[in-house]
């Protein structure tokens, strides 16, 4: 277990380093940063001055190392558009995105676990078919379209929920649904497959033979084991949700990282884009690391690196 942990940790660190290079290169090579800072139509000597002030005339490797060292010390630079430092900007927005990501994950779990269990228990019947139909239909629905349908229904027609903003709990209801439904189908399939496998295993037969009620067999003995892979998938999906929230946050003007990323991209505010990209990638790396270790801890067969 220790060797496996060390190996996975090393891989995670390597990936993180690689991602930092990509994040740096992507936005440094994609356009003249000095021009972006000086603004369109700036004079040549002004652009040159900016280049020298920001150290953009140095070799790329030196710039990268410099950038990495300052970033590691917690200094993400200054935002060109918001005119504040990037670190505090991100610290400001992260909680909203984290909230919406966690809510969506809980929403998806609350939907996929019962549906998956039902589909497995009634495998092959209309219940199973209906659950699968929901999964297939859900995966085909574009999330931004679904979000607009929700707004039309709950904000405009029924007037139950606010359209945009992030001031109250009510503002999080629609974004949670719009973001969470999309990860429900894969999780439901996993719960269903796991439950079908578990329910046909020997210890479940034993439990049934002992005369335990089917409720107790399904939930106490079955679900506990079927949920192991779901926990790992949930960790990975949370990373996916944080990255995918950019569309949903923009639609609902939720003041989180995704909306910040969108604004920074449209305003060519590259220090912010870079920081968000790096942060989301690192969170994903961390979550997959946790998921892998969790899996290995729960199921010793997985500990082959």
């Amino acid at each position, binding site marked *: 277990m220790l060797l496996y942990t060390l190996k996975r940790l090393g*891989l995670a660190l*390597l*990936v*993180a380093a*690689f*991602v930092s290079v*990509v994040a740096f290169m*992507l*936005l440094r090579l*994609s*356009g003249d940063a000095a021009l972006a800072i000086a603004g369109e139509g700036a004079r040549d000597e002004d652009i040159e001055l900016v280049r020298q002030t920001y150290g953009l005339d140095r070799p790329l490797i030196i710039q990268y190392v410099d950038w990495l060292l300052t970033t590691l010390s917690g200094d993400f630079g200054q935002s060109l558009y918001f005119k504040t430092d990037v670190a505090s900007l991100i610290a400001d927005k992260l909680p909203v995105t984290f909230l919406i990501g966690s809510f969506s994950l809980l929403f998806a779990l609350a939907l996929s676990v019962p549906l998956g269990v039902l589909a497995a228990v009634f495998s092959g019947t209309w219940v*199973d*078919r*209906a659950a*699968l*139909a929901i999964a*297939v*239909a859900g*995966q*085909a*629905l*574009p*999330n*931004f*379209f679904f979000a*607009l*349908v929700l*707004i*039309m229904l709950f904000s*405009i027609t029924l007037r139950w929920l606010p359209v945009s903003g992030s001031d109250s709990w009510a503002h999080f209801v629609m974004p949670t649904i719009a973001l969470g439904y999309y990860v429900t189908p894969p999780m439901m*399939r*996993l719960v*269903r*497959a796991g439950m079908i496998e578990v329910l046909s295993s020997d210890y479940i037969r034993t439990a049934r033979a002992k005369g335990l009620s089917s409720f107790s067999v399904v939930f106490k003995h079955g679900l506990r084991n079927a949920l192991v892979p779901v926990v790992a998938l949930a960790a990975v999906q949370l990373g*996916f949700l*944080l*990255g*995918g929230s*950019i*569309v949903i946050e*923009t639609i609902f003007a939720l003041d989180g990282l995704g909306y910040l*990323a*969108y604004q920074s*991209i*449209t305003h*060519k505010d590259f220090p912010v*884009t870079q920081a*968000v*990209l790096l942060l*989301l*990638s*690192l969170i*994903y*790396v961390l979550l*997959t690391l946790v998921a892998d270790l969790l899996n290995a801890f729960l199921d010793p067969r997985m500990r082959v690196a």
Partner: protein
Amino acid sequence: MSDAVILPVETVVPRTGSATARMVASPSVVGGFILVGAVVAIALLAPLLAPHDPYAQDLTRRLVPPIWHEKGIWSNPLGTDNLGRDYLSRLLYGARISLLIGLAVMLISGLIGTTLGLVAGYFGGRTDLVISFIITARLAMPVVLVALAVVAVIGGSLPVVILTLGLLKWDRFAVVMRSATQQVRSLDYVTAAEAAGASRLRVLLGEILPNVFPHLIVVATVEAGSAILLEAALSFLGLGVQPPLPSWGLMIAEAKNFMFFSFWLIAIPGTALALLVLGINLLGDGLRDVFAPEGRA
């Protein structure tokens, strides 16, 4: 639509018989084929089917509602948008963009991912370590964010969106091809070909690729659907295909300001997108069952 949704699950696919026979017997393959076939036909026949030029504006006829509305008129069966362009014609031509994106992105990312997966799975060892690392690193980066940033910097256009998504979305191809190749590389026919002196390239393309092809087809279908949804999302955010092209995602974005009074402007392209992706996903799901009936999940 409700029929098509119910279809995938009634898959009582016979486990014997040829793959073709099983495909015809699989309701989700048939349902998916019909949906996708309809969109392909619409895309090919758009100039014949469209009642108007999809780009022709008529400011005297803006935001005409569709025909089922009491104010609808037959000359514009699905109404007009805020610039007075015929919505049906734009919808029909929009099918071309979605299909082109799905197909082109699938080909580019499929080529990259399959090559990486085959090489990693076949050679193993250090090669596998390096490629697995590249896959892991790629997976760590959020696709939507990177795609948005790249398109924003280079400038949005159809080729840029296709290339960006194609260069980003090869991960699932690589993951699936790698493990599929690992499963067949030590089988007898591969060893036999190697013993007979076949070159590595020949073993890869002649022995391994044909045997992992079913997996490739399934991933390719699912990825085409996901690429179509991604393009729509990028265009919706204004950082994908640019106006006046009738991309379905862009049509939804342009209609957003009018959604309070003209929600059909959003509902029509949104439903078209959902139906196309539903068809593609049904095909993928059905094919997975056909190729591996015992591995159904």
